[in-house]
């Protein structure tokens, strides 16, 4: 096999020439194309797929005409969006993918037909949480039978009683001074005191609404249904974020309710240019999502790209923004998140103000912000709330934490196995003494400890609450003390693993910490193979993969590779707040300046 593997490459070259020059105008020969495929596979060569690669163009590259175009679209597009936003429901009809082919798409005039249809659709009476209430109303001295339908638990029952049933059943026969002839407009204008009422003739819309906390009203004799938005289910209140705690700064986090979340952001930004576009994802679930951006800051191409990706998703159900993240990220195998998931409205607001796009999904307390660069992932919202000297200390500690969590075990293995001269003599002898009774090679030793540490970590999350604290004691005591006493590991190694673990907890982004936790094992392997050279090769390839990566068209290591302005002062360290005058260059925002050169007005002499 290896023979083939090593010999084919040369013949491949020659062959390619032949193919190019000889068979260019003759068309492929079948046997040859088989051979060609064989070689391609042996060489892991895939024809570059014709996928579109989105590149967020640098503004300096963009020719003026392009800029003009971008400006034009900016003027026209968002207006359309604004209009659509004012409507309570998205007007574009969803592709009727869930429809049965022989079922009626439009509502019938006869109530019984509608009733049957709805009953079959919702599998009544098998389905237990669907409430169907039949009653009669009197409109203009005519008795019309009607029924309403809603999901128990998803609606505010009081509102249904007071604003739907009560007016229809009791108040409909009041003498209303109106000349309204059309029964539909009569009911909608006079009888139903509901603030969000949709009048539709399509089942799809009715069903979508009912599935999402609506109450549908069917009347006999008209081919129109009224759907009232009476959403009201039990949900979590706005609480402290669980994963991104700060000492200084707002303490509220997102909840599972979309509109609460958008309101939390809007409350911070208070800008009419903040657009929250509705997009629903899921062929069956129709999960509502909101795409947020600030109209006159965010690059249009970016907004379009996010919209395109969101709208193109074909999936039945989607439950959390974690799934959504995986569906729209650029590179599945990149060892780093390409979308920032955050629980903090203030963080989302700050990033929107920079010119990024956020997506909030109903049912998920994590908002997704994109594009994101490596350095944004090591920032914490607190960085901008504390004074800049403190923030810089925090940043350096965090960089140290990343280095520790990624490299420390690998470096330990490399040094103790390959570079003995690097260790001070006293420490060397101490390590040698402590390792004297340990039966494992140090690479096995460190793997044992790292894996136990990961076990403690995973167990700590899964463990039922009351037992939680005991786990820490077990972990620390049993694994630390006993492993050393049993001569399974050397004490110095416990220090290494502990520092590594602490380092990985200090990384502000959970997902990023994950990436480093995995790669740590790679570095242990490389360090154990050829010492520092292995780690250098690892860093090189790691670096190449990261520099080659893009998050929504923005290079992942953006302000440094490629180099744009403000890398050192904004991404690694943090300049004082009055010095942060420009938005990140790599986002190519429409409005490049965040604040004037002198933002502290009181500094100016009158």
């Amino acid at each position, binding site marked *: 096999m290896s023979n083939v593997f090593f010999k084919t490459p040369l013949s491949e070259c020659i062959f390619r020439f032949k193919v190019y020059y000889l068979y260019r105008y003759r068309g492929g020969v079948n046997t040859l194309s088989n051979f060609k495929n064989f070689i391609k596979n042996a060489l892991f060569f895939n024809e570059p797929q014709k996928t579109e690669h989105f590149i967020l163009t640098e503004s300096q590259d963009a020719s003026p005409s392009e800029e003009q175009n971008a400006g034009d679209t900016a003027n026209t597009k968002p207006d359309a969006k604004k209009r659509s936003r004012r409507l309570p429901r998205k007007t574009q009809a969803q592709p009727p993918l869930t429809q049965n082919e022989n079922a009626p798409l439009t509502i019938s005039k006869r109530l019984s037909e509608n009733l049957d249809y709805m009953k079959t659709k919702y599998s009544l009476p098998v389905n237990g949480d669907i409430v169907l209430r039949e009653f009669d109303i009197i409109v203009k001295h005519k008795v019309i039978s009607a029924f309403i339908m809603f999901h128990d638990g998803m609606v505010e029952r009081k509102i249904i009683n007071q604003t739907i049933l009560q007016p229809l059943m009791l108040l409909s026969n009041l003498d209303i001074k109106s000349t309204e002839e059309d029964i539909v407009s009569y009911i909608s204008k006079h009888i139903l005191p509901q603030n969000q009422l949709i009048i539709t003739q399509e089942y799809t819309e009715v069903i979508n609404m009912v599935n999402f906390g609506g109450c549908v009203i069917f009347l006999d004799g008209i081919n129109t249904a009224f759907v009232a938005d009476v959403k009201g289910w039990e949900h979590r209140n706005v609480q402290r974020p669980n994963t991104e705690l700060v000492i200084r700064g707002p303490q509220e986090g997102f909840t599972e309710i979309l509109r609460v979340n958008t309101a939390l952001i809007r409350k911070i930004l208070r800008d009419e240019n903040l657009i929250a576009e509705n997009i629903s994802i899921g062929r069956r679930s129709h999960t509502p999502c909101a795409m947020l951006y600030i109209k006159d800051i965010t690059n249009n191409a970016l907004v379009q790209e996010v919209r395109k990706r969101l709208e193109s998703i074909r999936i039945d159900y989607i439950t959390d923004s974690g799934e959504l993240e995986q569906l729209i990220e650029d590179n599945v195998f990149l060892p780093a998140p390409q979308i920032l998931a955050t629980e903090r409205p203030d963080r989302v607001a700050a990033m929107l103000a920079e010119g990024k796009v956020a997506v909030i999904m109903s049912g998920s307390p994590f908002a997704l912000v994109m594009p994101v660069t490596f350095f944004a992932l090591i920032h914490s919202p607190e960085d901008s709330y504390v004074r800049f000297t403190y923030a810089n200390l925090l940043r350096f500690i965090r960089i140290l934490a990343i280095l520790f969590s990624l490299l420390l075990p690998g470096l330990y293995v490399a040094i103790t*196995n390959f570079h*003995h001269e690097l260790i001070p003599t006293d420490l060397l002898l101490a390590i*040698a003494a402590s390792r004297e009774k340990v039966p494992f090679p140090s690479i096995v030793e460190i793997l044992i400890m790292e894996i136990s540490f990961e076990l403690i970590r995973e167990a700590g999350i899964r463990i039922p609450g009351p037992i939680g604290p005991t786990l820490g004691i077990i972990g620390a005591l049993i694994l630390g003390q006993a492993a050393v006493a049993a001569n399974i590991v050397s004490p110095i190694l416990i220090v290494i693993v502990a520092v590594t673990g602490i380092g990985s907890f200090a990384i502000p982004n959970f997902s990023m910490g994950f990436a480093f936790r995995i790669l740590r094992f790679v570095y242990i392997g490389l360090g154990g193979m050829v010492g520092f050279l292995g780690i250098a090769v690892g860093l090189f390839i790691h670096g190449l993969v990261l520099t080659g990566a893009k998050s929504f068209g923005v290079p992942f290591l953006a302000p440094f590779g490629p180099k744009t302005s403000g890398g050192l002062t904004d991404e690694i360290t943090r300049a004082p707040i009055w010095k942060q005058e420009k938005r990140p260059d790599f986002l190519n925002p429409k409005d490049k300046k965040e604040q004037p050169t002198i933002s502290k007005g009181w500094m100016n002499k009158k």
Partner: protein
Amino acid sequence: MVRKKVLRKVSTIVILCMLSGLSAGCYDRREIDDLAYVIAIGLDKGKSNVLKMTLQFAVPTAIGNGQEGGGSNGEKSSIVTTVETPTIYSGLNMVNNYISKQVDLSHAKVIIFSKELAQEGIHQYIHAIMRGREFRPNMFILVARDSAEEYIKNVKPSLEINPAKYYEMNLEAFKYTGFTGNTQLINFYLQQECTCSQAVATLAAVNRYKTTGDFTVKHSTAGNKSRSYPLEGDFKAGHIPRVGEVHSEIMGLAVFDGGTMVGELDGEETTYYLMQTGQYHYSYITLPDPIVKDKFVVLNVTQNRKPAHRVRMEDGSPKIHANIRLDADILSIQSGKNYEYAGNVHILEKAAEDFIEKGMLQFLERTTTELNADVCAFGKDMKGQFLTWKEWQEFKWLERYKDATFEIDVDLKIRRPGLIIRSKPAYSTKGEEMY
């Protein structure tokens, strides 16, 4: 499509095989506890072979278990082994036959040549050591006045557990004694290779005195300096009158001509050597009181500026002018004379300058007449006066050094008197008493 899948699998397997081949090949991987760490290497002239090599190994279990107070429980912190061998590396090979762990030299702190060997020439060993990756350029080069083996065997540090630390601390002591030099391997090598200077190595020996009753001044170099009593610098290693736990000691320098040892410097001469080369940090210098006989003045002398050398050729022989600038603090005035007083301080300064100048001239003349070795690297100044390498090489400085004449200008300034700023006599029944 099936074919494609199979192929993909096969090529994945091939790649995995290659990778596993990689991981199996941890050729250089050696655990810390798989190695035996040499701390000192001693080289003597062999009886049955060319070399007699003595290795001192650190015993990690005795040193590393710090919790119980280390080696105090009677465990030896180092072991010593001696082997006769043709070369250093072959000796290591032989040692590995009875030392269970592979010998590692990367933490060796000193390499000790016996005087006998050094007088025959150690050039070939220095080259072998410089070539070896494991030998550190920061290792110290020592010359044992009697036998390297004996010296290593007598290194039984009492203040620290780790003999490596003993060497490191002890050999750095020149920074505050001025009695040995910074004779790291790299310095030795550079001095030796430079065509404008000669190399030196620290002198080491085992002290012979068993009881205080054995003390004599017979071995002191004070006699050569027409002094009736020895000052603290008038000794070489092995002859310091002292007894105590530690028997090994270092003092003075061995002077080399190329790779061959040609002579020794005592402690005082070493101080002057350090002053001339600008390596002097600070030390106590005792000098006779300029006014009251048989009393001493002790100064803490520091060198804050590099020495200035000027070399001229006059009638074919080098004429060397050196300007040494020193600062000093007063530590003790036995006579009780008021030298601190700004009006009197120059008396003491003058005396100290004369004392140092005299000693330095004696030392430099010794380097030309007796040793014929430009240890103070005056050649460096000469070198700058040539334009091309060829001219300089043809000039043959090292040969011409023996005709050199010197002009020394020591400029010593007393800056601080310590805590006492006016000496006053003590009073007793006999009246004023000197202390």
